[in-house]
């Protein structure tokens, strides 16, 4: 894991507001050049490199062409091909439930007060492939705290936008849309949990969950819900799409765990996207390698049963 400490200028501050949400062509922009990146323990790699120059980091192409986003289609290439009509400007997010401040807020109001950081995280899909992605975003906890959750807030629930007219996959109804996910409040407040707004220094493309998505790097990718329009503080465990649809195969926690296999495939190893035709699969790390930071969240919990 790698966190750039210096604030990055937010894209909507350096670009006229009317077109910043649709801009997707700034790869390797000057905002990224020459800044120092810090690796935390647990991630091998180089220092003092822009993401593009860091061999561990996946290419912008791979990250934006290989997506599971069933709202747009089931094939990995579908989201990139079919998200053209997806309009993310303007965007608002409803905050409700067990908090003192609730209501509907503009994207800019949610993000505005915070400095955007860059974080390079490993991303592990439940389908046993992985990537390394340079996200831009904010610690979710910084955002959530502004809404003053009450002592009754034990969980945080998230919901993806429901727009069948713009999202062809939603018209097929493969999943119970809108897509929903949830975290315990402790998971949501953990400093690694990121509310991402961009990658590679550009705003999130539609296929990656524009304009606002969750990134929980120690959990399987399906927890990292995309295109968020609602965040609710709840007292009881919220509905979560995959684990409620197929509880034998997907759990609420969905922590990356090489010792607990999916019933239909092994989780012990993973294929790193971009490693080419002849690379071996690599061993999957407990909590996706973030155990030092997050294992304490689960002391006393039987991770085999609560997978």
């Amino acid at each position, binding site marked *: 894991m790698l966190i750039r400490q210096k604030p990055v200028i937010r894209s909507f501050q350096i670009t006229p507001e009317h077109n910043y949400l649709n801009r997707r062509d700034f790869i390797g922009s000057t905002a990224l050049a020459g800044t120092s990146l810090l690796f935390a323990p647990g991630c091998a790699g180089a220092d003092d490199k822009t993401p593009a120059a860091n061999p561990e980091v996946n290419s912008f192409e791979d990250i934006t*062409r*290989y997506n599971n986003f069933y709202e747009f289609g*089931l094939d990995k290439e579908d989201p990139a091909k079919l998200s053209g009509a997806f309009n993310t400007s303007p965007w608002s997010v409803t905050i409700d439930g067990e908090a003192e401040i609730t209501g509907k807020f503009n994207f800019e109001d949610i993000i505005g007060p915070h400095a955007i950081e860059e974080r390079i995280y490993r991303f592990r899909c439940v389908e046993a*492939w992985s990537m390394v992605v340079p996200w831009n975003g904010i610690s979710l906890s910084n955002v959530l705290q502004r809404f003053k959750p009450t002592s009754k807030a034990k969980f945080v629930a998230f919901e993806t936008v429901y727009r069948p007219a713009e999202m062809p996959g939603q018209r097929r109804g*493969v999943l119970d849309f809108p897509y929903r996910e949830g975290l315990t409040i402790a998971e949501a407040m953990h400093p690694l949990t990121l509310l991402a707004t961009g990658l590679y220094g550009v705003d999130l493309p539609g296929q990656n969950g524009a304009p606002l998505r969750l990134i929980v790097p120690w959990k399987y990718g399906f927890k990292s819900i995309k295109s968020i329009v609602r965040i609710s503080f709840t007292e009881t465990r919220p509905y979560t799409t995959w684990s409620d649809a197929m509880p034998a195969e997907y759990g609420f926690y969905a922590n990356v765990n090489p010792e607990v296999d999916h019933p239909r495939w*092994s989780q012990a190893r993973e*294929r790193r996207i971009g490693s080419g035709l*002849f690379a071996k*699969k690599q061993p999957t790390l407990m909590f996706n390698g973030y155990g030092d930071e997050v294992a304490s969240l689960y002391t006393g919990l039987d991770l085999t049963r609560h997978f």
Partner: protein
Amino acid sequence: MITPLIIKRFGKLAVFIACCAPLLWLILKIFAVGPLQLGPNPIENIQDTLGIWGLRMLCATLALTPLTWVTGPSLIRFRRMLGLFAFTYCGLHFLNYLILDQTFDFAAIIEDILKRPFITIGFLGLLTMTPLAITSTNNWRRKLGRHWKHLHRLVYLTVILACWHFYWQVKKDLMEPLIYCLIIAVLLGLRIWRIYRHK
């Protein structure tokens, strides 16, 4: 006009070329010829392409016999070739799994075959095809006599296992495997229907 004579002269070559086309296309993608590409997960792409063509070739092989009821027996000459192509695609599908996907990690492969139902079923599918491919020669056919026909009824089991394997590896959307289930149900159902009609 496609006359029986033309089918006899050029039919096999045409079918052979058609059956090679998906493999050639895949090879062009592997070598990234022109705009062709395998995409971000090339090994999975190869696995899926070979698997789906293996299944399609199996269906095509099984479709020939019912077709000859309508067209007359001349099409039956393609059945062996189609069957062998089905075996080739399924065999390459397995080799891709063995070599590129698992890099000869036999412990992991054995665990997969024993523990993951969809791999178990796929493996059984390939096993049931193997004796059919071996005994496809004229020599074996003569040697086995009427048993040859009995043995080759195994293909009905193969195709069911193949479709089941597909069905079980899908994450959520069962549409595509169900379409194949339907095709296979029709192909097998036609045979049952014919047996009863003749009784």
